[in-house]
């Protein structure tokens, strides 16, 4: 997937967004990690992106895109820029009874974006 670094002309990309827990005052109850990557996807998915390798969110989308490129699309619905790869975030935090909870939270960080 593409990274939003201003050079991809508004195409679907991953925008990195990091929050340091100290800055929002959450470092008293979240022991680790020190912050959170709240990355998100933004940008457009024009038809000509359909052929770009890695831009499709799934095999099904790649097939639909091929139809679309050949003018055989089942409707005029546009494609969306969505997360295509997510990763787990391990967290260590206090709950409200002072237990320390260690937990792997799946699908927590957006690693890549693509067109659905």
């Amino acid at each position, binding site marked *: 997937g593409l990274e939003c670094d201003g050079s991809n002309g508004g195409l679907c990309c991953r925008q990195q967004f990091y929050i340091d827990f100290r800055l*929002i005052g959450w470092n008293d109850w979240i022991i680790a990690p020190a912050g959170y990557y709240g990355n998100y996807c933004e940008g457009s998915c024009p038809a000509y992106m359909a052929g770009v390798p890695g831009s499709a969110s799934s095999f099904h989308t790649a097939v639909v895109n091929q139809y679309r490129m050949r003018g055989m699309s089942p409707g005029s619905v*546009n494609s*969306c820029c969505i997360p295509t790869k997510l990763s787990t975030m391990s967290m*260590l935090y*206090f709950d409200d009874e002072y237990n320390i*909870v260690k937990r*792997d939270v799946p699908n927590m960080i957006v690693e890549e974006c693509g067109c659905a």
Partner: protein
Amino acid sequence: PQAQESCASCGLGRPDDSDRVDTDFVEAVKRHILSRLQMRQRPNITHPIPKAAMVTALRKLHAGKVREDGRVEIPHLDGQAAYANEVQEETSEIISFAETDDSTLSKSSLFFLISNEGNQNLYVQQANLWLYFKLLPGGPEKGLRRKVTVKVHYQEPSSQGGGRWPLVEKRVELKRSGWHTFPLSEAVRAVLGKGGRRQDLDVRCEGCEAASVVPILVDPADPSHRPFLVVRARQADGKHRIRKR
């Protein structure tokens, strides 16, 4: 433009006030984290756990490496998962620290408030009690092991009759002061199974006095050796159980 509307994330416009965007985003991220941790709001930390106790517990569990700068690095619970699609079940490890209050009958009683992380159907995979035993000078000859028998009982709070029955009995051989674990999986399962959260225990040590050994219970003067309970739990849902059967 019509087609644009049919796609929730297409064509996110660039609002002119990026500060407002950041504030909105920060609030959205906060809500996202809390919802994924099944919390309605962030915990209110009024009297933090003594850092010494916390660091000891984390070190003992390899739950995290405490770096020089005090930051904690965490390995994944199951040690391998790198991407979400490999973590099929949400497991969590909960560390509870021993407490006492006026309903704990004697000096050898203590209790744990076990977190069920906001949901009732946690399946306890394993629960261990960690106790620290200190060797006092004046015991048997140097190098010889000191042998004691530790009995952990379930201690019913005085308000419910104060009954006591054995949970685990273990012969411990000590060469130096250190931590020892006592399996309490069934006891913790029973407490959580009844919808309770409080695990009352009574710890007796036979032979400790003669061997100059002291089990450290809740001692404000010694926070780094405070007993703690580790519960490894999994979100229990029907699907997995069926497969288990």
